[in-house]
């Protein structure tokens, strides 16, 4: 269950507590501390066998590999402001007023104008509706200086609503109203009505309302049956990726559940049967919603926030670095904000660094140091131990209250420093090694005077050392590049300088080896040294010297072409489909004439046989028929040249109809004549 929940400030990822780090057994199994893995629901002191059981449980925890979760969402100051704005809308009706007033109260805030709110509530209450009375009662209880008298009928109405025939919502509202108005209430009857209804209404919201109702009943009644519902509801939560725990009905229901569970647990005096991990997952889910669509949603989140900040059993702690989690010589203090879910600083807590280990060497640099409280922020001057630059894993724990949960976190802290370049030597080394190398020393940030030559006889060499300016130790940064830039053509080639065993960086330029990188382009190159790293505060780009590089003549290309990728490519000519071979026109024309010859033959034959039109009667139908037929043939021609089939069909239908009728008549007459 690795997690990196979005950057906080400087992109430093969170890490979960690794499973194989042994939990301090003393902490778990010390008597008097809250046991978290013992049998659920009991918070009694331990006997010796109990302690043994606890050790076994700790071992089991190691084996199971359960990883504690760090909270990913809480109400930051901005979220709180947004929630407050959502609740502070002007009241539209009594229910809205209830949500606003009671919601703000859960957050520890007060309504702007209490008198006006009180008047609004009193004027909008409907004495015949149990729901309305509930909203009014709760609002009045929260507002200071708001009093109302209850008539006997109202009281009777409320008492009558507490029965097996009303829905759980009705019972909840009636009991809540009676309790908030300060009227006497028969807890045992209410409890039996509630239990009876619970067996009929099994949905989540009804069960949550039952929990709330039970928190109004007297402690003499046996509320354990209702308390067990908390466990059942926890089992119905959906686990989303191991990070969120919420009901499928949504965030609102989940938040209401959290508020109701803690309210009832505080009332009854029993720790709610929820594991630490589940509480954190609930917290992540509830506070993941930052924009509230409805007032009831805002109200539910406010209630959850209030109950998770003030209850007798579990207080989730949120530990956030103030700004980026990075220290350096300029900023040696690591600042942490330690707050509850509503971003209220827990100034009473004691924050301790359990250990700080280097991420690369895993050596412990500091342990068991306390943070000091400065204003509302906890501080630790980490540079006092003079750590080397790099990343460190911090394990921080917050104590001071048994109720704290999620109070151990791992934090990755960056220690930055400044780099200095020393012992920079530029030299030309003869390949035959017959002449001693000429070395020039340069100091940063000056540039070497004169230029150096590298050609077929001699190589160019560069060596330097990198040290931490503050501590004097050798540094190996991530980026140590040597960049050669051709002044004429704009070419640049970048090489990596590598350190040897004594952490001295060396770079050598051999013209015969490096021909291809340079495209054999001779000329004057400017040499730059580039040093960079995440933990360096002063990355370096230094123009060290000019180097004249001469490549052997035969490899000089005709033109030094800059490899420009963005010129138009050669045009592709489209090849049209070759037209098919046709016979010569003569042949086609001959054939056409040939085809018409049978027609001639036909006419001759017809004349010979004696076909004639002597029987042609000039009856109207006959004429119409022949005209229609001729028209149809004409239509065929037009179809061939101009029309499409649908148009032709249209005309054909008309013509055809006419011709058909006429033809019918004509042929009938013919038949009669015959």
């Amino acid at each position, binding site marked *: 269950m690795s997690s990196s929940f979005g950057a906080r400030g400087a992109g430093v990822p969170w890490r979960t507590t690794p499973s194989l780090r042994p939990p301090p057994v003393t902490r778990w199994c010390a008597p008097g501390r809250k046991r978290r893995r013992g049998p659920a629901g009991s918070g009694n002191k331990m006997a010796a066998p109990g302690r043994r059981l606890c050790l076994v449980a700790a071992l089991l925890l190691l084996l199971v590999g359960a990883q504690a979760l760090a909270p990913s969402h809480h109400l930051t100051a901005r979220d709180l402001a947004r929630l407050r704005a959502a609740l502070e809308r002007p009241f539209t009706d009594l229910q809205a007023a209830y949500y606003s007033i009671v919601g703000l109260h859960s957050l520890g805030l007060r309504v702007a104008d209490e008198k006006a709110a009180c008047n609004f509530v009193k004027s909008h209450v409907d004495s015949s509706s149990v729901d309305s009375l509930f909203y009014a009662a709760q609002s009045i209880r929260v507002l200071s200086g708001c009093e109302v008298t209850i008539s006997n009928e109202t009281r009777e109405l409320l008492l009558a609503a507490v029965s097996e025939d009303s829905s759980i919502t009705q019972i909840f509202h009636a009991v809540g109203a009676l309790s908030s108005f300060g009227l006497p209430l028969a807890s045992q009857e209410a409890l039996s009505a509630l239990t009876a209804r619970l067996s009929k209404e099994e949905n989540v919201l009804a069960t949550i309302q039952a929990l709330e109702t039970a928190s109004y009943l007297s402690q003499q009644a046996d509320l354990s049956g209702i308390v067990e519902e908390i466990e059942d509801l926890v089992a119905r939560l959906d686990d989303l990726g191991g990070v969120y725990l919420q009901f499928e009905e949504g965030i609102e229901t989940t938040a209401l559940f959290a508020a109701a569970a803690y309210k009832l647990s505080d009332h009854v005096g029993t720790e709610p049967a929820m594991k630490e991990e589940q509480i954190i997952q609930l917290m992540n889910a509830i506070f993941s919603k930052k924009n509230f669509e409805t007032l009831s949603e805002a109200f539910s989140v406010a209630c959850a926030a209030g109950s998770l900040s003030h209850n007798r059993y579990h207080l989730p702690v949120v530990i956030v670095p103030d700004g980026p989690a990075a220290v350096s010589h300029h900023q040696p203090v690591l600042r942490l904000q330690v707050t509850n879910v509503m971003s209220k600083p827990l100034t009473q807590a004691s924050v301790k660094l359990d250990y700080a280990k280097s991420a690369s060497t895993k050596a412990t640099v500091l342990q068991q140091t306390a943070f000091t409280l400065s204003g509302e922020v906890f501080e630790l001057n980490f540079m006092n131990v003079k750590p080397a630059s790099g990343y460190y894993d911090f394990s921080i724990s917050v104590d001071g209250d048994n109720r704290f949960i999620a109070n151990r976190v791992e934090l990755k802290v960056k220690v930055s420093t400044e780099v200095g370049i020393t012992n920079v030597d530029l030299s030309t080394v003869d390949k035959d090694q017959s002449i001693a190398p000429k070395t020039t020393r340069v100091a940063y940030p000056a540039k070497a005077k004169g230029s150096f030559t590298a050609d077929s006889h001699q190589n160019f060499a560069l060596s330097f050392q990198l040290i931490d300016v503050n501590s004097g130790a050798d540094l190996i940064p991530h980026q140590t590049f040597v960049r050669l830039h051709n002044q004429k053509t704009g070419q640049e080639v970048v090489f990596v300088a590598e350190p040897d065993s004594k952490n001295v960086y060396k770079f050598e330029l051999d013209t015969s080896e490096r021909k291809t990188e340079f495209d054999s382009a001779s000329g004057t190159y400017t040499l730059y040294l580039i040093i960079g790293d995440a933990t360096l505060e002063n990355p370096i780009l230094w123009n060290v010297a000019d180097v004249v590089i001469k490549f052997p003549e035969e490899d000089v290309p005709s033109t030094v072409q800059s490899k420009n990728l963005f010129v138009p490519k050669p045009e592709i000519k489209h090849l049209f489909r070759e037209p*098919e*071979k*046709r*016979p010569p026109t003569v*042949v*086609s024309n001959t*054939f056409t004439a*040939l*085809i018409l010859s*049978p*027609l001639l*033959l*036909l006419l001759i*034959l*017809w004349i010979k*046989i*004696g*076909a004639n039109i002597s029987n042609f009667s000039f009856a109207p139908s006959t004429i119409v028929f022949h005209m229609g*037929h001729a028209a*149809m043939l004409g239509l*065929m021609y037009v*179809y061939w040249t101009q029309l499409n*089939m649908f148009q*032709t*069909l249209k005309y*054909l239908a008309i013509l*055809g109809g006419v011709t*058909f009728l006429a*033809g*019918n008549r004509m*042929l*009938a007459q*013919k*038949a009669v004549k015959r």
Partner: protein
Amino acid sequence: AAGSVGSVVRRFLAEYGSGTSSRLKVLDAYLLYVMLTGALQFGYCLGVGTFPFNSFLSGFISAVGSFILGVCLRIQINPQNKGEFQGISPERAFADFLFANTILHL
């Protein structure tokens, strides 16, 4: 054998000339014309190539279709076949012929 073929043919032609009504002869002439047209088209295609194929297809099929419809008409008109076509008068057959031809050439 050649003589018998020749004599058969001559005999056939003589019978044909006398035995068939002129109406049928007119129709037969038409059928001959259509057949010749179709055959010529086919021969051209064999000789010169199938370009343009569409034209060849349409011409040839038109010829074949017309021939078939003409044959149908001839069968239906022939008085010797009257027994088999009770309900269809020659006029009706002719009307059918015209209709079918229209549809074919559509």
